[in-house]
């Protein structure tokens, strides 16, 4: 909140993009003029229609931003949905003010437009600040100024071209993005590397992502618009490894300890079938595995399976 206020203080009149300025100020002016001059309650209907068309225009502009970079991911849909929800909340707020103070409907239009303009301004500043740009000159619709590589990369995940995704994410990170764009790039880079069997690099970038404020806040239980069911990412220094012999009460003890201190518990035994489904299938019979064998062979087999489950094969 503090940094946001500071940013607003520094750039009180930062440009929210000419299109947004034009659309929202004209709706606000139309609302104010309408409220002062119109007499009948349904006179503002044409102005309302104009505002709906204008907001559709802004949506098209956003889509062009995505399309000119080839972004067609679920993230984009999520962002648009968030904007729609914000739009509805602002509309409800404006209507509420109109009814609460018994104002003319046209005032609602002006209030809604001003609120949305302020919201838009804030989103733009956040977006521009994420790239370390001066928000006064942030014109994010030009791919030359902001190629948004990290968003473009998601397209390659969908087509399973993970090497291309990795290349773009690395290019995106070279531009030193900040805030959510940095977390987003690091996390996706880790995913791409893991899928390309580069576990070391993936762990490094995953740890770096987990260190980002965006994920740390989320790991503490804040929702921040992120899916709340996705488990938080522990950094390696927060993992305690408990191994040893089976059948000595380890899991029971680990469970008790997890309860006592509210820790996350990951028991290999509880993921056995889930892991097995990703490993090469066992072709031997149970007799061949357990009876016609020696303890040494069984131990070799066990260790082999462990390595496979850790992705070391």
């Amino acid at each position, binding site marked *: 909140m503090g940094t946001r206020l500071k940013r607003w203080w520094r750039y009180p009149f930062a440009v929210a993009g000419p299109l947004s300025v034009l659309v929202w100020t004209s709706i606000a002016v139309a609302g104010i003029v309408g409220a002062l001059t119109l007499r009948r309650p349904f006179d503002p209907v044409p102005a309302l229609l104009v505002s709906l068309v204008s907001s559709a225009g802004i949506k098209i502009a956003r889509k062009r931003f995505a399309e000119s970079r080839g972004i067609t991911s679920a993230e984009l849909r999520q962002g648009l949905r968030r904007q729609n929800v914000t739009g509805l909340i602002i509309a409800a707020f404006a209507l509420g003010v109109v009814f609460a103070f018994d104002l003319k409907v046209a005032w609602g239009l002006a209030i809604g437009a001003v609120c949305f303009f302020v919201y838009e301004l804030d989103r733009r500043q956040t977006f521009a600040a994420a790239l370390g740009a001066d928000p006064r000159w942030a014109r994010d619709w030009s791919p030359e100024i902001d190629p948004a590589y990290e968003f473009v990369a998601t397209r390659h995940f969908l087509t399973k071209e993970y090497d291309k995704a990795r290349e773009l994410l690395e290019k995106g990170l070279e531009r030193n993005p900040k805030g959510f764009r940095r977390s987003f790039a690091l996390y996706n880079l880790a995913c791409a590397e893991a899928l390309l069997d580069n576990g070391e690099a993936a*762990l490094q970038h995953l740890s770096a992502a987990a260190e980002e404020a965006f994920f740390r806040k989320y790991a503490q239980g804040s929702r921040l618009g992120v899916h709340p069911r996705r488990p938080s990412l522990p950094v390696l220094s927060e*993992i305690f490894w408990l191994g040893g012999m089976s059948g000595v009460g380890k899991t029971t*003890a680990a469970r008790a300890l*997890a309860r006592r201190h509210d820790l996350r518990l990951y028991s290999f035994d*509880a993921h056995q079938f889930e892991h097995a489904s990703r490993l090469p299938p066992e072709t031997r019979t149970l007799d061949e595995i357990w009876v016609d*064998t020696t303890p040494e062979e069984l131990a070799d087999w066990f260790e082999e399976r462990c390595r496979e489950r850790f992705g070391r094969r």
Partner: protein
Amino acid sequence: MIVDGPQALPELVAPLAASPDHVLYVVASRKMQEPLVRARGSGVASRVRDPERAVANRLGRDEELVRRLRHGAERHGFPVVEVQDVTETLPAIARHVEPLLADWIAAPHGDVSGRRRDENDARIRQWRFYMDSIDAEPSGGLDFACECDVPGCGLFVPLGLPDAEAARICGAPLLAH
């Protein structure tokens, strides 16, 4: 987060562990382990030609694994603790882990309910997979963690598989109180 299982071999944990203090191996003598393994049983014994030989092989395997484990742990400087009785396991682990948790214990614990839910989810899935693999109807129950949002809640919810799955389908948390 605790990662638990005999699968966490020293050679596999070494590149991932933040420090040797973040690792602990618990072992026991065969004298202590054997009755526990026999009492616990496994789905294998009833489906092999010679159950006694299978159990003997399994116990022999564990002895061999402990030998290798001690060797690997020594090479990487990981601590190994030997327990004489199953009641010693929890205190032995707690003694080792709790000093690392000082900061965590003092801080707010966040989404405790979500953590217990994930743990229960894994056990429900595993149970269902197992039942499907042997093509049997589930019987008996498991003690699931209470999914309330009270930090430190150690209560259990004893449930059978169908009840646990039914609760998941309607999105209800498993609660003990």
